């Protein structure tokens, strides 16, 4: 429906006002303190887009009389887009330093750069108690929406300093200081890796799916055959559903496997930290948002740990009296985990629905390909088990002593520890010394969990700056 000119003028005025409000809000947010450049770039991008759209509205306004229907459509499209941008500003607003685990931001960006150098991530808190990632490249999404609205040179100006491959990773806001649980961030990064695998694989599985779905559908309606069109639609729906279950399953499982290969036992233990609060055998369906059962996820993650040679080896010789205890307690934890995944109740949940079973049979058949993909693409970048464990074991005594586990060596002859070693040392300490939550709450164990998290965050930050400082010194020598 077209609007009378007077109402149209008023509407356009409101739209321009919204653009200006988003532009101003973006500028205000961009002047906040952020722990890295990405949130500011994101806020500035939204501001530039809103400013450009305001000018576009001003240009479109006089054309209304000549082509009311088309111009109104364009203006409504712009208005929707601006409202969406206004809502997206909350991502940058939440990413201010004070709301983040600031010590982890830069080390995490380094970790991502190691595996996915063309991707940039903005970390932000969310109220929901969940870790998540926006898989879509936000810059590309905005660019696609703008493409038909503004000229190419204008588009280039708006996106001039905005990185390609921009994603938002969210963590539960109440866990801001929970360095140990933040190992789950590696799982979220794993989603980007899973996406690359899924894009690269051939859809051969669909042939097998179709064959079995046709057979099953006809079997079910043998006594009362469906009309051909109806049958065809049923087959297509089932094919889509099986493909969706398979895709969602692989997304989560590949992300878990990537996390375990990148962070070792720390990722597995952090995964268990989330899994413990949920039912382990939920069928992957609409109600569970097609998530794989937790028991299945833990089984694949544990397998990845073993495939990656990441079972705790014998600790190095040390004067620290509890070194052997660390290996024993870690192995005990893994044994208990093995007992959890040896129960096959999740498999029964999967088998209850033949379509889910079909999807999960395909997932199992795909796993060798996943392992090959990860080895081929990221193998040399994953930490070697020897180095990971050696460093992590050596860092635990520092925690025991109430000192951040940021460096190896002694005296003034030290070198920064790797982030994955720091996180594993923290988990090793927790598994070995903080088993009894009651004793911990009574203050019988020092460092307790709060101090442990604090020291771990500090260690990540100190190791990061030590690494950067060393690089600077080396460069200065040259």
């Amino acid at each position: 429906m077209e609007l009378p000119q007077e109402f149209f003028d008023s509407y356009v005025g409101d739209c321009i006002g919204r653009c200006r409000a988003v532009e101003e809000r973006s500028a205000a947010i961009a002047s906040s303190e952020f722990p890295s450049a990405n949130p500011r770039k994101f806020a500035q991008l939204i501001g530039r887009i809103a400013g450009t759209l305001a000018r576009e509205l001003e240009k479109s306004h006089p054309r209304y009389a000549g082509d009311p229907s088309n111009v109104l459509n364009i203006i409504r499209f712009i208005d929707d887009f601006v409202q969406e941008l206004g809502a997206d500003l909350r991502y940058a607003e939440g990413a201010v330093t004070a709301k983040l685990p600031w010590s982890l931001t830069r080390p995490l960006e380094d970790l991502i750069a190691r595996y996915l150098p063309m991707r940039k991530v903005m970390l932000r808190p969310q109220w929901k108690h969940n870790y998540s990632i926006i898989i879509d490249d936000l810059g590309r999404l905005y660019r696609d929406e703008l493409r038909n609205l503004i000229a190419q040179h204008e588009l280039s100006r708006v996106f001039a300093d905005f990185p390609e491959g921009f994603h938002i990773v969210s963590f539960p806001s109440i866990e801001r200081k929970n360095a140990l649980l933040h190992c789950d961030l590696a799982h979220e990064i794993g989603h980007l890796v899973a996406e690359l695998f899924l894009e690269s694989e051939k859809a051969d599985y669909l042939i097998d799916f179709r064959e079995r779905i046709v057979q099953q559908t006809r079997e079910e309606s043998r006594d009362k055959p469906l009309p051909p069109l109806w049958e065809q639609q049923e087959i297509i729906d089932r094919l889509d559903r099986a493909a969706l279950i398979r895709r969602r399953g692989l997304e989560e499982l590949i992300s878990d496997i990537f996390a375990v290969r990148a962070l070792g036992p720390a990722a597995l233990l952090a995964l268990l930290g989330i899994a413990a609060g949920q039912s382990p055998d939920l069928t992957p369906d609409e109600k569970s948002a097609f998530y794989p059962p937790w028991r299945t996820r833990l089984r694949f993650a544990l397998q990845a740990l073993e495939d990656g040679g990441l079972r705790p080896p014998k600790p190095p010789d040390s004067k620290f009296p509890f070194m052997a205890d660390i290996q024993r307690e870690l192995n005990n934890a893994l044994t208990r985990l093995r007992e959890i995944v040896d129960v096959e109740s999740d498999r029964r949940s999967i088998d209850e629905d033949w379509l889910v079973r079909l999807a999960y049979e395909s997932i199992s058949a795909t796993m060798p390909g996943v392992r090959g993909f990860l080895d081929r693409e990221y193998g040399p970048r994953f930490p070697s088990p020897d180095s990971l464990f050696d460093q992590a074991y050596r860092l635990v005594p520092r925690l025991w002593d109430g000192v951040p586990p940021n460096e190896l060596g002694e005296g003034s002859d030290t070198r920064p520890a790797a982030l994955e070693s720091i996180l594993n040392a923290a988990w090793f300490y927790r598994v070995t010394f903080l088993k009894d939550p009651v004793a911990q709450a009574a203050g019988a164990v020092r460092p307790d969990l709060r101090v442990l998290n604090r020291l771990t965050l500090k260690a990540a930050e100190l190791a990061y700056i030590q690494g950067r400082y060393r690089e600077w010194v080396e460069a200065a020598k040259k």
Partner: protein
Amino acid sequence: MSILTRAEIETAMRREEPGNRLIITPLLAPKKQITEASVDVRLGNEFILIRKRTFASLDIAARESVRSKIGVYQEKVRIEFHEQFVLHPHQLVLGSTLEYFKLPDDIGAYLMGRSSWGRLGLVIETAASVAPQFRGCVTLELVNVGEVPLILYPGVRIAQVVFHTTKGSSTYAGRYVCPTGPQFSRVHEDDDLGFWCPGATEQTRIIDDAEPAGP
């Protein structure tokens, strides 16, 4: 009590018994930072600022009020490396050392400003003593007593720590457990406050690492 020289500091950092070793971490440039009889330390990233506009006065006797209002009175901010912190004339802020210390049970320390900064008007540290067995980053009370604003950068060498041996050994029983940044005052937790400050409210709870909400 005798002050540790460079060689003695290095020896204390390499003691065979790890639990009784002096740890200063990170020492980014040990050859420059360990001087004849002290160690230069760097400015950390976290600062506690006073929010003047929201607080009329601070009465330490109103313990519960101090505890609950500490986030109104002071706020913690973080300045990234390579960014500036402007300290205005006569402004007090709390900062901390970048370095985290672990002192053995027979070594204490004093923290003091560097004369190079003092000449610019920056006064550092009024509570200079660090007890044996203390673990943590040391809080710095920073005041610009000069006439012009001073620009500070996290990571710059800003203070020096002089270590000394103690007669006998000691166990740290202070209020600050493994702090990794500047700490708020806990003077309101003094146990004899009730005697000296008529009307001092009862102390109900000690918080390990009380921290106000961020902005």
